[in-house]
Structures are given as structure tokens and as C-alpha cells.
């Protein structure tokens, strides 16, 4: 199969999965916007009213970080079980196993696009108007996409061999949510901790950068973004080599799972 056929197959699979999912619910694809919105409103209610931790424009503050985080967590969680879920196909066809995590990542991307548009409109509603700097969102989204692909390929592979990791992923995502500066400003942490988080937690860097750009607070560290892009691109290449090497072994594991 040619690479273009693979890309098209991933796209067709993702679009059909979306259509299939949407047709199951009365509100169809509107859930892709309602669900993240309801989660953010829930957090807003807890932090702003119950805990009285709110600051000025707290809802937007939450949204700017929550949207990139939810994109990451949902995509990785969905992709992690994607190979095991396709036992039927894998036992019948010799197919590149990476197609399945890629399809799951693509489904999450398509679901995320309207949410991103909604986020931009929310910024306008809060009085944060677009500047030229907003164009820096494009490399930010691109690098987050690379991070998602790399982590998804890794977790999907591990879960093929050790399914227990599926349970750990939910716990890691919860931990990551509290360590990525979604509910608080990373710069408000005592000096070395905030820097450590931004340096060693790519999701914290992503959330902080989205907020910096959208709330017109300044510019993120472009060199760090380039470094992340390079690291995760390399990880994707390595994962493809591993997938290629383990193709038949993975098939046997999935068939006997």
C-alpha cells in the first residue's frame, strides 16, 4: 500500500467513525462542542463560586488551557486502545498497525477543530481581539499534534503487550491535568517549580502558551517549541521503526489477546 493510500485510509476511517458516533446521539455532532463546554463550565462553577479562587476573566483563563489539554488527553486515551480494539481486522489482514492510533488521533483532531473555533470566538466575547501574534497559534497547534501522535503511537503499542497500562493512562491524565497549570497560573508557583513544569511537562508548556497568545499576555518560548517539535518528531520516527519491526509480533499478540 502506498503512503498516500494509507493517509486516505486513515482519513476515511476517521470520518466514518465520526459519522457513526454522531448518528448514535440525538444531538449528534453538537456534543463535540457541548461536552468540553460543559466540563469547563463545571470547573468554572467549582473554582469561581465554591472555592472563590476566581480571578478576572477566569472562564477564559480556564478555557485557554483546558482546550489544548482535553485535546491531548482525549486523543491519547482513545488511541491507546485502538489497536487492541481492531482484533477482527488484524486477524484477517496484514495491515500497518499504526493506522489505528492515527485514525483515533484524526477523529480527535476533527472533533477539536470546532472547539478551537469556539475558543477563538470566546476570546472575542471577552474583549481579546486578534493580533498578528495569534498566527503563532499555528506552530503551537502543529507541535501539539506531533506530541499527540507520538504519545498515542507509544501508548497504543504498550497496551498491545500490557493492557494494565490502560488503567494507568487515566490516572496519568488526571495527574497531568493538575500539573499543567490549567486552574492556576504557572508563573504564580514558587520559582524553580514553575520553570521545571514548563521545561519538563510539554502539556504545561502548551497550555501556558495558548493562554499567553489568546489572552494577549506575550509570546511563548519559540526555541522550546522547536525543541519539543524536534523531540516528538524523532519519537514518531522511532515509533514507526518499532511498529515496522514488530508488525507480525503485534498481530500475534492481538489475535491471542
Amino acid at each position, binding site marked *: *500500500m*502506498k503512503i*498516500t*493510500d494509507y493517509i*486516505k*485510509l486513515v482519513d*476515511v*476511517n476517521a470520518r*466514518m*467513525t465520526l*459519522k*457513526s*458516533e454522531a*448518528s*448514535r446521539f440525538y444531538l449528534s455532532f453538537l456534543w463535540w462542542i457541548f461536552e468540553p463546554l460543559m466540563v469547563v463550565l463545571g470547573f468554572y462553577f467549582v473554582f469561581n463560586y465554591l472555592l472563590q479562587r476566581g480571578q478576572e476573566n477566569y472562564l477564559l483563563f480556564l478555557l485557554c488551557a483546558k482546550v489544548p489539554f482535553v485535546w491531548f488527553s482525549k486523543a491519547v486515551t482513545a488511541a491507546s486502545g485502538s489497536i487492541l480494539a*481492531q482484533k*477482527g*481486522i*488484524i*486477524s*484477517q*489482514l*496484514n*495491515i500497518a498497525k499504526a493506522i489505528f492510533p492515527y485514525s483515533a488521533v484524526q477523529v480527535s483532531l476533527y472533533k477539536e477543530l470546532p472547539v478551537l473555533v469556539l475558543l477563538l470566538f470566546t476570546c472575542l466575547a471577552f474583549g481579546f481581539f486578534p493580533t498578528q501574534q495569534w498566527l503563532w497559534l499555528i506552530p503551537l497547534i502543529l507541535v501539539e499534534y506531533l506530541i499527540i501522535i507520538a504519545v498515542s503511537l507509544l501508548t497504543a503499542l504498550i497496551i498491545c503487550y500490557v493492557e494494565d497500562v490502560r488503567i494507568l493512562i487515566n490516572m496519568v491524565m488526571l495527574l497531568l491535568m493538575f500539573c499543567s497549570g490549567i486552574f492556576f497560573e504557572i508563573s504564580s508557583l514558587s520559582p524553580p517549580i514553575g520553570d521545571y513544569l514548563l521545561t519538563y511537562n510539554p502539556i504545561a508548556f502548551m497550555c501556558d502558551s495558548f493562554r499567553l497568545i489568546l489572552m494577549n499576555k506575550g509570546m511563548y518560548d519559540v526555541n522550546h517549541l522547536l525543541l519539543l517539535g524536534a523531540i516528538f518528531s524523532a519519537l514518531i520516527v522511532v515509533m514507526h521503526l518499532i511498529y515496522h519491526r514488530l508488525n*507480525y*509480533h503485534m*498481530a*500475534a499478540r492481538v*489475535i*491471542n489477546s
Partner: protein
Amino acid sequence: MTENSLILQARDITLTYSMRRGMFNRFNHQALKGISMDLYRGETVGILGRNGEGKSSLMRILAGIINPTSGTVSCATDVSRILLSIGVGFMPNISGRENALYSTMLQGVSYKKAKSMLTAINDFAELGEFFEQPISTYSAGMKARLGFATAIMTDVDIMFVDEVLSVGDENFKKKAEEAMLSKLNGNQTAVFVSHSAPQVRKICNRAIWIDEGKIRAEGDAIWVTNKYHLHMLELQKLEQEKLANQEQQINTQLSASE
């Protein structure tokens, strides 16, 4: 490959499954115990055997889906191999058309070519307007028809067929068998798995009988199927004798208790 017409060669294939049954408990099963076979261009080889004798595992190895535990399968890289699969990747909430497109693409066909095959697939599957409806609305027979039509349209060098002829109602079954026969009587190289001796005799030139993971007989399809048939009759006879013995034992126990 040493011979011109040889398309695939398998030597001393073994396959051992190791399945986890708890934290420290594993279950090992040797499904194949040293199978060697050659496949020549244009021939149809039947693989006979009872359920659970390793036929499907052998097909997966020959089709290049999994590797054997030991032994080799030699096949040129440009030779396309496919295990004919009915309804592979079907999603219930999308239409027959979309499912046929996706399933065809999964089997290695490009998007453009898969799209151009859709009318022929619907014509063969005889779904009419249902082709545009979600397959969750289909009967089991309709799903099988769509699955068979999608699978049979794909062009490959070696086709591995795992008992797919019993699909749909009697009329469609006949049509499916005819379509398969016309494909196999052409230049199609195929390996056909079945536990039905008459079906293998009808379709195949050569047959291999697999019993307990080993080749029990190999050669002319009529000779092998006859041997297999006789063996099955013997097994049936033994089974009947066993049942008769059990019945006799129960009757003796009953009369003793009375």
C-alpha cells in the same frame, strides 16, 4: 524460488501460542507442528481438517499476517496475498456504500479504485436502495452478501479463502459459489480452507489434510478428500460406539438399582 511457477513455499512451519491465564499462569498450545508445502501459480489448493486443527493459523501465516514460531515462508515481495474476509471492518451506523468503500480500502485498494468498484459491489450484493442505508438496518443475509461482494471484487496474486461460501440464502449461496469458481478456474492462485470434502473436491486441484497440526495426506484432491472422508466416517463410527457403550452402562446401572 527455484521453480518458475512456484509462487509460495513454506518449510517446517510450527506455531505455538502462549496465552496468559492469570498473573503467573500461561497456557501454551502448539497449533502447527512442522508443515511444509509449495504453492504454484494458478492452482487452487484445498486445506482440509476438523475445527481447531490449525487451518486458520496456517492461513494467517501463509497470508503473511503472523509469523510462524519456527520455519520459513518464502514469497516474493511483489506478490500480493490476502485472506478473503467477509465484512472486515464494517461499522454498524454507516451506510453499506461507505462500509464497502472502507472495507475495500482496508484490503489495499486505493480510494479512487475502491470508489469505482462500488456500483459493481452493489450489483453483486443485490442490496438496491439499502446500499445507502446504515448496515444496522440489514438482515444477517444482507450483511453477508455485502461482505462477500466487497471481498470477491479485490484482485490479488494469492487469495486465501477461509470457508466463506456459506453466505446468505440458497440463491445467493449458489451465486457466491459460482463467482468463486469462475475466479478460481481462471488464473487465480488460491488456498481454500474447508471441512467439507465435497466442496474441496469441486473447487481444488490439489488438497492437503491437516490433523493435529501436521500434514496427514497431501496430493490429488480426490485422493486426499476420499482419505479424509473415510477417516471422518471412522471417527463417526467410534463416536457412535462410544455413545452406545455409555447407553448400555446407564441401562445396566438402572436395572441394578431397580
